[in-house]
């Protein structure tokens, strides 16, 4: 098992003929992901890296049975591309694009809810179920199959944590970068709920950061619904208030959204919070009693 994507995930790449699209399509195919189609309007009928290209998502889904998509399109076209994928009937759409206007994400989120499509991102590295499917831009080779779920608002910090886990022989069930924007399609709670149900997942690492109250809500969810151990790391203990720290969502506003508040909320429900990423494997081993 694993969550959201697995060996049955059939991927369509939106923007497959672009520079980033072509580069990462190659990376996904090399990893073993079943990339079955690509979409670039006006380039239908071409073949890119052995993958048939279609003009529309509808065509791609009908002709290839794609059930997931990942988009490499400029931010200003991302909302339209996500909507097209959802209307074509895919189950999961990964929006890597950084810089999608927040109100557009808000609008498409409501639509995706109705259509029953899961969006991961925007502004995220994607999702990987090691050994089964890489639907994203992460370096595949640092991952190994195993029992740890990792869910994170960050990209490279997630790689750092996965790398640390690997050094201690802790493989992963599914690693999700949910994205650094204020409004995202899949949040901590959605992911935690899925990990709790997933037989492969034995424990979860939750990587949060300053801004918003998603970590506090996740803590509440852990308390009420999780029997599997969860350990955490929160980035931004030293971040000054009022400054946006790179991610659109990473800002301490009106004294709210500090790392201290999040660490307190998580600790209060029995989730140990690491001081540094390198402490995470130890906390996981402790939680699993191994």
């Amino acid at each position, binding site marked *: 098992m694993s969550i959201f994507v697995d060996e049955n995930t059939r991927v369509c790449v939106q923007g497959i003929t672009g520079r980033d699209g072509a580069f990462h399509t190659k990376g996904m195919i090399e990893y073993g992901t079943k990339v079955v189609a690509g979409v670039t309007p006006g380039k239908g009928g071409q073949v890119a890296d052995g993958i048939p290209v279609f003009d529309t998502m509808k065509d791609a889904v009908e002709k290839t049975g794609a059930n997931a998509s990942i988009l490499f399109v400029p931010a200003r076209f991302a909302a339209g591309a996500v909507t097209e994928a959802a209307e074509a009937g895919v189950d999961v759409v990964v929006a890597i694009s950084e810089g999608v206007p927040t109100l557009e994400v808000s609008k498409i989120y*409501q639509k995706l809810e109705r259509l029953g499509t899961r969006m991961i991102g925007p502004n995220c590295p994607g999702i990987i179920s090691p050994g089964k499917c890489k639907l994203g831009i992460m370096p595949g080779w640092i991952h190994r199959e195993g029992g740890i779920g990792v869910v994170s*608002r960050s990209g*490279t910090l*997630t790689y750092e944590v996965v790398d640390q886990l690997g050094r201690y022989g802790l493989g992963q069930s599914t690693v999700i970068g949910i994205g650094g924007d204020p409004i995202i399609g899949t949040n901590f709670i959605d992911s935690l709920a899925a990990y709790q149900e997933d037989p492969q997942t034995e424990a979860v690492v939750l990587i949060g950061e300053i801004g918003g109250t998603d970590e506090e809500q996740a803590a509440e969810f852990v308390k009420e619904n999780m029997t599997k151990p969860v350990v955490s790391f929160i980035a*931004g*203990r*030293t971040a000054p208030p009022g400054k946006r720290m790179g991610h659109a969502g990473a800002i301490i506003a009106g004294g709210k959204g500090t790392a201290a508040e999040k660490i307190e909320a998580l600790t209060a429900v029995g989730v140990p919070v690491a001081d540094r*990423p390198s402490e995470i494997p130890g906390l996981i081993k402790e939680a699993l009693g191994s």
Partner: protein
Amino acid sequence: MKIHEYQAKDILRGYDVPIPRFEIATTPAEARKAAEDIGRMVVVKAQVHVGGRGKAGGVKLAKTPDEAEKHAGAILGMDIKGLTVEKVMISDAVDIDREYYIGMIVDRATKKPVYMVSEAGGIDIEQVARETPEKIHKYAVDPEKGLSNEEALELAAKIESRPAVAERVADFISKLYEAFVGSDASLAEINPLVITPDEQVWAVDAKMNIDDNALYRHEEIAAMRDASTETPQLKRAREMGLSFVKLDGDVGCVVNGAGLAMTTMDVIAHYGGEPANFLDIGGSSSPDKVVTALQIITSDPNVKSILINIFGGITRCDDVAKGLVQALEQTSITLPIVVRLTGTNEEEARKIPAGTEFVSADTMDEAVEKAVELARQPA
């Protein structure tokens, strides 16, 4: 992006939100002229990007043009929380019967635009939220449908009981929605919304933040950026697509990814050091970005050591290494540099810096520990 009160009012006026007449002055003489034009009692208001202008003495009532000139003289050039006042607004001082609060944000939890309205306007809304939270009414709008007249009226009725006035407040709420969505705001705050004794409705103060991600489709708003609030370093960083925040420590950081950049700062603190900055070189790194990043960091005289922490995903380690070599060729960096490059193309990257003076490290902990130690050593 933060914009000034007068800019927010310009945007709102474009959507027919009722705004008291105002003019902008950069000299006391201009302020006098503006007060004469308005021909009534005016308020002289400092235009700076911080809250608490009133408490700092940056907002004054003026009964006559003489007084307006005098107040403008005192407020222009004033320092409010580290920012110098360069412009004042001279605004018609409308008569006040009641003061309400209307705010809007894009809410992370409901993922929708959310109104917050309160009959307790004119004071700090965070204080109201702490002391009398029952006085704040929240309402989430379905962004696909927009706000209906019925919804606006229902919301207005929560703060205004007189039916005729409530209708005007509802109209105000509807127009504010159009302005919010139309300008891709991330926050809009009208505090106070004033009801005059003759039952007219006015946005007496207005604050708006605009979603940076949407500025590409609002050229006129993007042009409102106040260059005076931006240091040369910040400007260069923004133009190069780097996220940069200046801090007070002495370990300069170049990192890829916002989460890892924040974590690097935290780990520096863990080892007893202090970060000089937050700097994210972003995803698709080019050698140019690394050169610019190093130039920005070395322009800070506090910096005593530089830490480069890269975990390559989209970012290719060899690109970063190339940038590093270029930067060292183009500039005369004498500070010690600790480099940790892991991930995509790390093997290729290892070949590049050969022959140059770096301290290399395999893990983040090791790299940070070395950089902190080097910052402590006397130069």
